[in-house]
């Protein structure tokens, strides 16, 4: 260890760290405080006496109540959960097989295929939704959860494939060879040895995929019409902004409740998630 002066550590480490934390967490804090702030405070000017812009003097649950009682928020939450879970599972299954094949099997055109998959990921959703809308209409899937469960994987599979391909490459191929000598087939070696070893990577890909589909906006806006089919990001924005009136309290309550499941998923898998991002398997 290098011996350094204490003030240096403060200046170069703690201070930038504190700035960074405040910077990233402040919007979340603002969202939370707005959700519990009564309307009188929300619409009052900061210059009036007793103003408390950074906290609230009379916390209230009225926005939460309003959100849950006057809008279809619980339905949106359920829709989002269902759609995100199903599309994540589809994408993980496809991504795992594709990533394994691209990382391990030598076949004609494998490099081209890898690049092609990556390129599909680069096409912006804001363009892709136009042809996809056509397909969804022809297949009569519009305004059903399937419209999103089947279109989200178009973004998520390339993403999972690339992430998992990288992860599979870090696993020594001798593990697999040894399993094959030990009596496993190629598929058996993959299922019994490689997949358990790759669980951190698979979980990381899953968390990312889940978050991406949870937050997705454009497809959900375009493919879902009726209020009871909407997802949280679309529902909150389309139902709680009426004309030029922003129902800030309910908007923020919706955002807060909408981010809770993602936060839970993150903290539940965080141990795996971190090793998945940083680590591979040592021999």
């Amino acid at each position, binding site marked *: 260890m290098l011996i350094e002066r204490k003030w240096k550590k403060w200046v170069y480490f703690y201070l930038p760290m504190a700035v960074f934390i405040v910077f990233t967490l402040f919007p979340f804090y603002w969202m939370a405080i707005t959700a519990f702030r009564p309307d009188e405070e929300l619409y009052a000017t900061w210059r009036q006496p007793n103003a408390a812009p950074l906290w609230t003097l009379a916390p209230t649950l009225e926005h939460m109540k309003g959100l849950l009682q006057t809008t279809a928020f619980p339905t949106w939450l359920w829709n989002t959960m269902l759609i995100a879970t199903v599309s994540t599972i589809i994408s993980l299954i496809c991504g795992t097989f594709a990533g394994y094949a691209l990382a391990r099997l030598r076949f004609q055109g494998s490099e081209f295929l890898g690049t092609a998959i990556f390129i599909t990921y680069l096409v912006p959703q804001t363009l892709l939704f136009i042809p996809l809308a056509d397909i969804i209409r022809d297949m009569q899937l519009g305004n059903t959860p399937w419209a999103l469960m089947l279109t989200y994987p178009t973004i998520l599979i390339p993403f999972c494939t690339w992430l998992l391909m990288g992860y599979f490459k870090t696993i020594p191929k*001798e593990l697999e*060879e040894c399993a*094959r*000598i*030990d*009596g496993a087939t190629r598929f058996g070696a993959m299922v019994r040895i490689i997949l358990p070893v790759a669980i951190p990577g698979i979980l990381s890909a899953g968390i990312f995929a889940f978050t991406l589909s949870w937050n997705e906006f454009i497809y959900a806006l375009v493919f879902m019409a009726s209020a009871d089919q909407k997802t949280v990001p679309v529902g909150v924005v389309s139902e709680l902004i009426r004309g030029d009136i922003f129902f800030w309290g309910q908007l923020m309550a919706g955002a807060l409740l909408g981010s809770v499941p993602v936060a839970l998923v993150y903290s539940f898998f965080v141990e795996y998630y971190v090793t998945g991002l940083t680590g591979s398997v040592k021999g």
Partner: protein
Amino acid sequence: MARVSIRQLNKKYDNGFHAVKNVNLEIEDKEFLVLVGPSGCGKTTTLRMVAGLEEITSGEIRIGERVINDLPPMDRDIAMVFQNYALYPHKTVFDNMAFGLQMRGYPKEEVKKRVEDAAEILGIEALLARKPRQLSGGQRQRVAVGRAIVRHPEVFLFDEPLSNLDAKLRVQMRVELKRLHERLETTAIYVTHDQVEAMTLGTRVVVMKDGLVQQVGAPLELYGRPANKFVAGFIGSPAMNFVDVAIQAGNGRLWAEAQGFRIRVPDRISSQAGKRVTLGVRPEAVRIANGVDDYSFATEVDVVEPLGNEILLNFRAGGVPMVARVDPGTRVSAHDAVRFALDPARLHFFDPQSETAL
């Protein structure tokens, strides 16, 4: 009976690289055969073809009477130990060792008994419940060996199993592997780039270079009668000294001459008179001369390396650097003028073009 025959074995990669060229080897039952050579010589590729991890371009491999060319690895009745151990990180030591037996459907009791027996042989009984990451390098090595021996395969394959260990542990494991082989009496093929490992472990040693077998023989045979200059230089440490000389007849005797260097050589190479050859002499065949004779020459020592059990003297002769290995009691310091003599019975001669032994 597990005799391994390798006939006309070739490996050509898709990019045209010819990694293994016409290799023919007969490995007897219970033999410990070592493939040794510098990296890229094709030794590991050969082993991987025996294991079934690499496709065979042409040729034939038999284990016993079975041709195994197209059998998948699991049907070849082999076990392999890898350089990086390849322990399954998510399984305990017990499960690592039991995996191969479980895959083959052995009854639970039998699996337990075999794993415990192997663990006892290797002294790892206390580690059976641990995960690989909780083990030291030497312990992982033992588990990897244990995983190979529980299956009682017909052939063991070792791919540089000791090169990830530190020097001291490597020497210790080397002895243990040899002891284990004597106890289990199973045919083994062992790949290494370390000639000391090759010499100490092998019943026979195969020296390879550029995909070609250079020489096959017992360790001392390779050391005493190398087939060519490559084998001569590869086996032995410090390496054999080579000096290009002209063979001249004079006074009814044969002489090897180079710059500042003229010694008498045996009559057996009289056919080379008037030609240039490469003279090879091992460091221990160079001694300090008692007086002036036909086999000695004068030079100056530039570096003295005392190793305790011996002293290495570095000097120049015939325009090239050479090493002599002398008794630790020898009193010589750097820059001393010294007369060295070569042991005429231990001189090697190589054709300068083909590099084969003369």
